[in-house]
């Protein structure tokens, strides 16, 4: 049994590495798609600052960054620097190493994403169970409606509407992560509370979008489980309905939901990008947007790559989790 699981984990790991390699290739392809390159943009910026750039300098820079070489060579240069030196390249947009940029933004982005994810699951699983058990009740309809609103209103608009409501109720738009003056203050209880207050809207906006589909999956799974024969058998044995529900049905229904954790990361990163722009959060979303428009390819590429790796990792972990929880999953996988 244990050996079985190890085999499963190893095979998953192998495919994961393959996937990451493929992703890196696609990322590099995408970031080199737009016409022109970062160097011409960089030179343009220098020109706007009132400087003339000589053709010799341009040629020299081109050689320096390997831009005169074929795609595969450029790709190799990029990926080998990452793998062997941990060097993600240089951001021309911000005039600093990409690693520094990522360091500056990764913590807020990750914290926001994680908190949102916890919120999403903490809300949608209980609601899904409730809705399934109390199918067609007032509560069921209420939650379904809220879920649908979350899904049907584009999240940038939801952000603006919530901001408006907040402004009307509290006189503050709750933009950004801190109130004026708090951003640079030392950590204190007041600052923490301020942060919490400002997190409500972003978490609601990003969370609602995913909550709806999760809630509905959970509800559907739960309904399926409730209709299965083992429930009938347990009931016939004299177990209480409540015990059956929470001890067996919920656990079984959780499996597919748990396995979706990895994928839901994608949605959360997506949501974060847009919400960061609307609500002015110090996450990578805004910088990413700029970097892409500016063709600051090392920055854009590295970030895209990191997000993708994070998703793959998330999936890997949720696969392992699922295999741990549900032996059927791994045996099926091993059989092919």
């Amino acid at each position, binding site marked *: 049994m244990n050996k079985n699981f190890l085999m499963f984990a190893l095979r998953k790991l192998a495919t994961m590495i393959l996937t990451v390699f493929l992703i890196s290739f696609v990322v590099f392809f995408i970031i080199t798609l737009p016409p022109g390159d970062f160097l011409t943009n960089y030179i343009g910026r220098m020109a706007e600052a009132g400087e003339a*750039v000589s053709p010799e300098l341009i040629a020299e820079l081109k050689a320096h960054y390997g831009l005169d070489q074929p795609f595969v060579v450029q790709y190799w240069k990029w990926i080998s620097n990452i793998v062997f030196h941990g060097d993600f390249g240089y951001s021309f947009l911000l005039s600093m190493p990409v690693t520094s940029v990522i360091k500056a933004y990764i913590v807020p982005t990750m914290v926001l994403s994680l908190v949102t994810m916890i919120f999403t699951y903490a809300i949608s699983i209980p609601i899904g169970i409730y809705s399934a058990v109390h199918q067609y009740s007032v509560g069921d309809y209420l939650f379904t409606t809220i879920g649908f609103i979350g899904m049907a209103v584009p999240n940038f608009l939801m952000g603006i509407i919530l901001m408006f409501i907040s402004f009307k109720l509290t006189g503050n738009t709750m933009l950004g992560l801190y109130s004026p003056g708090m951003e640079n203050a030392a950590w204190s209880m007041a600052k923490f509370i301020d942060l919490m207050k400002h997190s409500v809207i972003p978490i609601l906006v990003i969370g609602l979008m995913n909550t709806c589909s999760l809630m509905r999956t959970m509800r559907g799974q739960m309904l399926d489980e409730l209709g299965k024969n083992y429930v009938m058998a347990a009931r016939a044995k004299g177990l209480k309905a409540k015990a059956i529900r929470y001890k067996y049905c919920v656990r079984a229904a959780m499996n597919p939901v748990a396995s979706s954790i990895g994928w839901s990361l994608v949605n959360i990163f997506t949501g974060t990008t847009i919400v960061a722009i609307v609500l002015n959060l110090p996450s990578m979303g805004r910088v990413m947007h700029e970097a892409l428009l500016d063709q600051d390819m090392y920055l854009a590429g590295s970030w895209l790559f990191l997000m993708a790796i994070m998703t793959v990792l998330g999936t890997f972990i949720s696969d392992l989790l699922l295999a741990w929880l549900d032996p059927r999953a791994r045996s099926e996988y091993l059989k092919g």
Partner: protein
Amino acid sequence: MKLKKFLALSLALIMTAGILAGCGGKEETPAETPAETPAETPAEVEIVKESPMLAELVAAGSLPELSERLPVAADIMVETDKTPENPQYGGTLRRNNGGEWDYGPFTEEPLFRLTEDGGVTPNVAKGYDVSDDGLVYTIYLREGMKWSDGEPFTAHDVAFYYNYMLVTDFTEENKIVSGYNGTTYNWYKTTDPADGVTKPAIVTVVDDYTVQIQLYAPKPLILQNIAIDNKWMFAPKHWYKDIVAYDTSVEHWTGLSHDVLGGAGLTAVTEEEAVANAAARNARFTFDDYTQLGNQLGYMYWSYKDRPTLRAWTMDSEKTDQTYVFVRNPYFWKTDAEGRQLPYIDTVEMVTMDNALYSQEMIAGNLDMASVDVGDFPTYKAGEAMGDYTVYSSVQPNWTSCSIELNQSYKDPQYAELFANIDFRHALSIAVDRNEMNEILYAGLAEPAQAAAPAGTAQFIEGAREKWTEYDPAAANALLDGIEMISNDRNADGYRTFTSGANAGKPVLINLEGHEKCNSAEAIALMAQYYKEIGIQLIEITNTARNTRQQKVTNGNEIMALYEENLNVFNPYVRPDRVGANRNICTWVGKYGLEHAEPMTPAAGSEMEEIVNLTKELSTAATMETAEAVGEAFLQSHLDNTWIVGYLSVTSKYTALGNDVKNFDADHISCDELRFYGNAKPYTWFMEQ
């Protein structure tokens, strides 16, 4: 509108007055030292002369006394006319962050400051002398003045910057090479009558507080050039000496001893060493190569924490931070008339957010200051009471706020010919209903006008703003019908086509590059709809790849046309950048601009050739008369040729400012040359506590 006082004719006058007086800076050093002023108000409480924030540090022993931080009493710069009644120290001013070219000028302290009438006034410099032959400029500095880290500011800092960072080489091809950012630099050029070669000026240290600039021929505009184009002609030598590349064992291009050039005490640093030293000093100073290092730390230094400056506030944030915090410089060398050290405000925060968010944050009371886009004026105005702020209006020498510049050097010969045809520009000008555009874009706040100097400025020409402004699509169509190379009938999409050549059968299509920062999309969409009426297709290509604009402008012949939202012209000969053929950001000039690495030569006898020649003439003009004549010729050329087709002009610059911010001079003139808000001297503002 309200351009009442404006940019002057009196430039020549001031210049001569300065020369005669011998020292232009004398009048602003008052006889009585500011330190003694409290003695004259014995009955009152003693005036607090420094911010409580700094007083605390002094009390704790971590900062020297105020008198030790300021220059010697006679050399303190006193802001006499900007001293408010009962100013208060402290407070944080939160304002919009418009990027480095916005927050830079906000705190900038140049050697000389350009004045609203076109003259110069000493700033970091205390004063200057000019020799009788106009070849030697002696610049006096302030004794005891200090950098924001407490190190003394001396003549060596000026000479070091010029000789080792700015003009590091002078090659045979007559190119002046700036080592620190790898570019050619030409503001100090004069032609040597001895050999006819154009050479850079020679800058030397006379003593600790005196610098000398030696020219080969008179250049009456040199101080203006320094004031505008080389505002920060100094750098902290003590901070740069191991991150700038030089070798004092080799002879300098001037042939002079390194000691008089500001190189005393230096040995040798290679470019690689400089990059490595910078990175070793602080991870934030990690750059990919020497050019990057020079461009960032040497040129756009004000974005970097820890770099000593002479400014009222210095950067205290990482570049990746969302809000840039600028903290007061404890060594700032200016006081008010009553001897209080400036600035009054302790911190300035530049808050970065999406442009669309500033108005709501002003209304919500989360910002103290925002620069107002004219189109948002109604919104800001409607929110005044809610956000407890006031929208002020200042003046700007605006030629146009909505215009199209056709690239006269466009690479496709057929388009180049079309753009050179004045009837085509005439048609584009009268095809647009300026009044309707004004209603839609600017709530009726703009002036329907051709691109030309507004009334009240020295460059104003009667009738120039009215030229070709009458909306007349029929006449526009008739004009286009008269152009042979394009068809009179329209294709299936409703556009005219080329009748012959490589583009035969293809629609006449202008790719217009918008401006990413200024919501140009709506204006361009409107223009496109007017142009369609006369069979010309207009496409905006900004949003998909923002920076292709700059890239194409640099290439000089790739961009077809540019939408210009805010074209302000200070003075055509003091700064010819937008009206002459110089810079590479000027689209109508295209690749004819002299700053291009390889500028194109215009056809002999063409109007463009005239502009190019005028620009060359101006760069080495030896008398004021020549410069003025060139300025007038520029204006005439624009009047005759309508190089820039202007539709609307906004001569007011609106600013939303919290009601607790006092002493803001709403009457200041706002333009790049005067450093926008820098001209309103933010260090004299204060916040009611």
